[in-house]
């Protein structure tokens, strides 16, 4: 059984790109340091050796022009994978992403399309700080014409990568640094994880936790803590943010009547706000709450950084308060930190 093989997220990314490049010689991979000895934390390891410097190459620090190059190459018959080692660096390519990539197919009446994948990695912990930690996916969700995917596990990292490369549109591929060593069952043969299909990772009847990217794992840990209190949580992974599986989120919310969306980004105008707004427009009677980065800049000191992110304890507390308002519940911070490493491996 191939699905008994486990793979880390980083190796799943690597395998996804490798297989996508093997099946289509128009695919090329570029970005600062994709071909060096560290190979983007290992995610591009061995690719220049297999595919050569014409298809795997580093770039000058010219994110604006390199993004434009990807677009121009894409509309002329190639399929670039543009890699950024931190999501924060995408800000240097925003003009091309927002003004060209997202609009090329529509603005020119369907004459051309932009099949490109833009990989970027969200950093976290160990003092990544203000400019190495941002989850900026909501900026891209705002722009019609872009697709945004955020794999939370190795299986999806590979399946979404292959689907993204085969897609004929610009796909913002949002990775998370802390997920790189996590393992899941991953088939060896090429496969796609479809966009726009949320996945229930854990079922529970009391509260629905929607996690984005790495927050799926934090939600799973929170669910373990809640279970000890007799509260059963559903954990839902949207998998892709654009297209977003609004219907599934609504169904899973209706089942429990309680929803907490935990984003790996800020709440203001974010993915969590979008999900709650959709549910409000549907007339949901569920109790709803958003969680995400604290509405401030990410600090480097661990004493402050710990307060910046939702964690299993704060998520579990929020769920507890929603279900049992006014009742005291303080998970031991050490227990929360050391909460069972759920590390969901599938099957999917």
């Amino acid at each position, binding site marked *: 059984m191939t699905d008994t093989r486990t793979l880390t997220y980083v190796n799943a990314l690597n395998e996804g790109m490798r297989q996508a490049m093997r099946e289509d010689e128009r695919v090329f991979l570029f970005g600062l340091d994709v071909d060096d000895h560290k190979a983007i934390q290992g995610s591009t390891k061995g690719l220049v050796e297999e595919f050569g410097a014409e298809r795997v190459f580093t770039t000058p620090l*010219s994110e604006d022009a390199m993004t434009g190059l990807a677009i121009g190459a894409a509309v002329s018959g190639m399929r670039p994978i543009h890699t950024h080692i931190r999501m924060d660096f995408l800000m240097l390519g925003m003009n091309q992403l927002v003004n060209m990539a997202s609009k090329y197919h529509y603005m020119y009446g*369907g*004459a*051309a399309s932009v099949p490109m994948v833009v990989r970027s990695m969200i950093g976290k912990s160990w003092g990544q700080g203000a400019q190495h930690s941002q989850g900026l996916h909501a900026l891209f969700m705002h722009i019609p014409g872009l697709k945004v995917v955020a794999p939370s596990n190795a299986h999806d990292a590979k399946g979404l990568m292959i689907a993204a490369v085969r897609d*004929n549109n610009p796909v913002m591929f949002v990775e998370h640094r802390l997920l790189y060593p996590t393992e899941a069952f991953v088939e060896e043969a090429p496969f796609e994880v479809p966009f726009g299909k949320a996945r229930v990772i854990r079922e529970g009847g009391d509260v629905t936790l929607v996690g984005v990217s790495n927050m799926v794992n934090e939600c799973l840990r929170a669910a373990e803590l809640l279970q000890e209190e007799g509260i059963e949580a559903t954990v839902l992974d949207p998998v892709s943010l654009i297209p977003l599986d609004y219907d599934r989120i609504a169904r899973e919310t209706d089942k429990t009547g309680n929803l907490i969306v935990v984003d790996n980004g800020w709440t203001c105008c974010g993915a969590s706000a979008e999900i709650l707004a959709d549910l409000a427009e549907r007339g949901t009677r569920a109790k709803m709450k958003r969680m995400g980065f604290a509405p401030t800049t990410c600090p480097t000191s661990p004493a402050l950084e710990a307060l910046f992110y939702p964690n299993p304890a704060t998520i579990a507390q929020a769920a507890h308060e929603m279900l049992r308002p006014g009742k005291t519940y303080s998970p031991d911070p050490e227990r929360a930190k050391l909460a069972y490493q759920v590390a969901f491996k599938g099957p999917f």
Partner: protein
Amino acid sequence: MSAPRPNDPTQPTADDLRRLYRSLRLIRRVEEEVARVYPTDKIKSPVHLSIGQEAVAVGVCDPLETRDYVSPTYRGHAAYLAKGGSVPAMIAELYGKATGCAAGKGGSMHLIAPEVNVMGASAVVGTTVPTGLGAAFAQKRLRTGAVVAVFLGDGATEEGAFYESLNFAALHRLPVLFVMENNGLAIHTGTEKRWATDRICERVETYGIPAQRFPTSDVIDIRAATIEAIAAMRDGGGPHFLECVTYRWREHVGPGYDYDQGYRDDSAYKEWQARDQVELIGGRLTDTDRDAIDAAIETEIAEAFAFAEDSPWPEPDRLYADLYADRDFTPVRGV
């Protein structure tokens, strides 16, 4: 211009002159007609006219083959037409009609002609420099032998993406001809308020890119330089740069003149009019040839405007069409 040599491809034959004149005159007359119709409000798009600047696009595009690419600017009617873009599809696009080259979704600033490899034009200055670079990258990787002419204005040279693109094009020896249309104005602000020095060719040469300056944008000179640059690039040579000094006769956007607005007077305009390339090249044709070309152009333009007038508006369901491309989408060609 070097001395003519026998069979020198850079020296225009009588056929070449007729073709150059036809292209120059077509662009001039299409845009004059756009300006004439504009006050009727039938054109539903801001227009940035190239009148006075046609020689740059014509000199560069004349030696290009269909397989070669052009990456135009928002002042791009001239490049679009010079590369062979459809006149009816352009006018219909300006009218916002379903038959436009961008199906009525792009307008004057977003012309595209995939069938002749005119890439999509952008309203954001400098943006189509890197996208043209990408097309050049694709030509080199796909070994098509095609080259890319990237048009840009003097303003675009102030954007970081311009220098990023020069550097990458030179580093990877990409077949890209950077064509700078230097009309000295960014909207209404002159280069003297924007440039520390005007030695743009020197700046470009520091990247190892050959650069040439054309102080009057003589169409024959630009064409000759382009022919040589194309030959070098098809032979594996890297990028080339042309600074074509030119003059925008009309206002930045819109159909009119603006010499009464106080930011410039008409003295330079009169100098440029005196060496108008449309007239100069037209003057080298026989009257018979010129009349025949003029008449054919008038018919073509009349038919194009009639086509635009008669074309339908896009249906309401087109509002959401083509936001995303399907899996089975195949482009018309390249672009």
